[in-house]
C-alpha cells in the first residue's frame, strides 16, 4: 500500500505555516484523531504534558506539539515532505 494513501486516513490537511518559525501544522481527521494521538504518544518521547490537553513530544530531531483537539505543530521541520515521512513512521 502506498504510505501516503494510508496517511490520508489519518490526516485531513497538512499546512506549512508562514512566519519565521517555519512550522508545519497537521490537522487529523476528526474520526481518527484519538487513534492518531494514541499512536504518537506511544512512539514519540513525551517531554511534557499540560493538563492532558497539550503534549510536547520529540521524535528524532523534531519537536512536536500535539493538541487533543486533533492538531499538531511540527517545529522547525524542513518541509511538508519531512513531516509526512515522520507521520508515516509514527502512525503506520
Amino acid at each position, binding site marked *: 500500500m502506498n504510505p501516503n494513501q494510508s496517511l490520508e486516513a489519518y490526516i485531513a490537511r497538512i499546512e506549512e505555516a*508562514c*512566519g519565521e518559525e517555519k512550522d508545519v501544522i497537521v490537522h487529523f481527521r476528526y474520526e481518527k484523531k484519538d487513534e492518531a494521538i494514541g499512536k504518537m504518544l506511544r512512539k514519540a518521547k513525551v517531554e511534557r504534558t499540560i*493538563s492532558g490537553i497539550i503534549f510536547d513530544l520529540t521524535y528524532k530531531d523534531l519537536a512536536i506539539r500535539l493538541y487533543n483537539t486533533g492538531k499538531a505543530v511540527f517545529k522547525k521541520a524542513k518541509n511538508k515532505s519531512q513531516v509526512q515521512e515522520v507521520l508515516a513512521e509514527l502512525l503506520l
Partner: protein
Amino acid sequence: MFDPYRVREDFPIFKRKINNHPLIYFDNAATSQKPRQVIEAMKEFYEKHNANVHRAVHTLSLEATELYEKAHEEAAKFIGAKSIEETVFVRGTTEAINLVAYSWGLRNLKREDEVLVTLMEHHSNIVPWEILSKIKGFKVKYADVKPDGTLDYDSLKEMLTPKVKLVCITHVSNVTGVINDVKTVAKLAHEKGALVLVDGAQSVPHMPVNVQELDCDFLVFSGHKMLGPTGIGVLYGKREILEKMEPFQGGGEMIREVSFDLETRRCTISWNELPWKFEAGTPDICGAVGLTAAIKYLIALGMENVIAHECSLMEYALKRLKKCTKIKVYGPEDTKLRCGIIPFNVEGLNSHDVALLLDSYGIMIRSGFHCAQPLHQKLGIPSSARASFYIYNTREEIDRFVEALKEIEQAL
C-alpha cells in the same frame, strides 16, 4: 443604539460550538461572517431570478441585469463615487490591484519611473508592483514604518519625488489596525503629479469612506470582508482615468462590437462603456446581489456606529491585555491611531501555538505574517497572533479571550 447582541441574532454561524465552546470569531480582518439577509438574498437570486446579465431580452435576464446594475449603484453610493461608471466589479482587492497594475501600470509606467508603496502593505499591494517592475524596469520604493507600526510620513515625503508616478497605500494596516492619513498622502502625491491607489480592504468594511473626500484615484476593497460573499470586490477609479485605461481582460461583456473585415480578415474591436469595459465574461451576479444586501445591512447599522463599536472593543481589549504579563501587543499606544485589529505574541509561544490553543477554547484568531512579511521584518517579530473585531463581537467575548490567554500564560 448599536447593540451587538441584536446584530448577532442575524448571524446563523454564532449558533455553532467549536470544541464544545460557543464560537468566538476574532478573524474578521481575514473575512467576515455573513448575516442571514445576505444568505437569503443570494438564495432568492438563484431560486427566482437566475440568468445571465446584459444583451438578452427575456424577463429573467432583465431581472438579473437590474439586480447586477443596482449592485454597482449601491457600491458607488457606499463609497461616495460620482456614478456607477466609477465602480468596477472584480473578484476582490487583489484582482483590483492587479487590474490597475496591468491596465494602467503596464501602459503608463516607464523604466525611469518609480512606484512608492509603504512597508505596511499587504502582499497584494506589493507583489503586483514588483512583478510589473521586472517587466517594465521601473523601481518600487518602500516608505518606512516607525517602531510602533505607524507610517513614517517624513520617509514618505522624502521618497515622493517627481519620478514617482503612483503611490500605493493601505488605508488601514491589516496587521496593526493603524489608520493612515490617506487624504494627506493623496494631496502630497498629487502635488508631485503622482496618482494614488488606496487599499480599502480593512477600512471600507469598518468606517465611513468617501472617495471624493479622500481624493484618491483608485480605491480597492473586497465584499467578503464586509459581510458579503467571497468572489466579489470593487475597484473604484476616477472616471477620467478609467476612460483612458485599456481593458484588463478580453472577452464577452467588455466589448461594444467585434467587427470582422471580410477583405483583411481582421477584427476591429471597440470597448464597452464603463464600468463594463473592465468586466470581461459572465460576472459574479449572485455575488453582486450578496454585496448589495451586505451594503444595505451596514448602511442600516450606520458606519459611524460600526467604527465606534470596534474602537470601543479595541480599547477595552488593549486595557485588559495590558494586565497579562506574558503578552506583548504591537501597534501604537495612542488608540486614536488604530482601529479594531490587535496583533500580539505570548512569551514563549509562537503565534501558531497561540492560535491553536485559543482554537481549543472556541476562539478563532489568525497567526503568521498575515500576508505582510515586510512589516513583520521591519518590526522585528517572527510572526504574530492577530485578533480582529467586527459588528457582532462583544466585550463578553473579549473577557473570555483574555481569560483563555491568562490560562495559557499560567499553563506554560
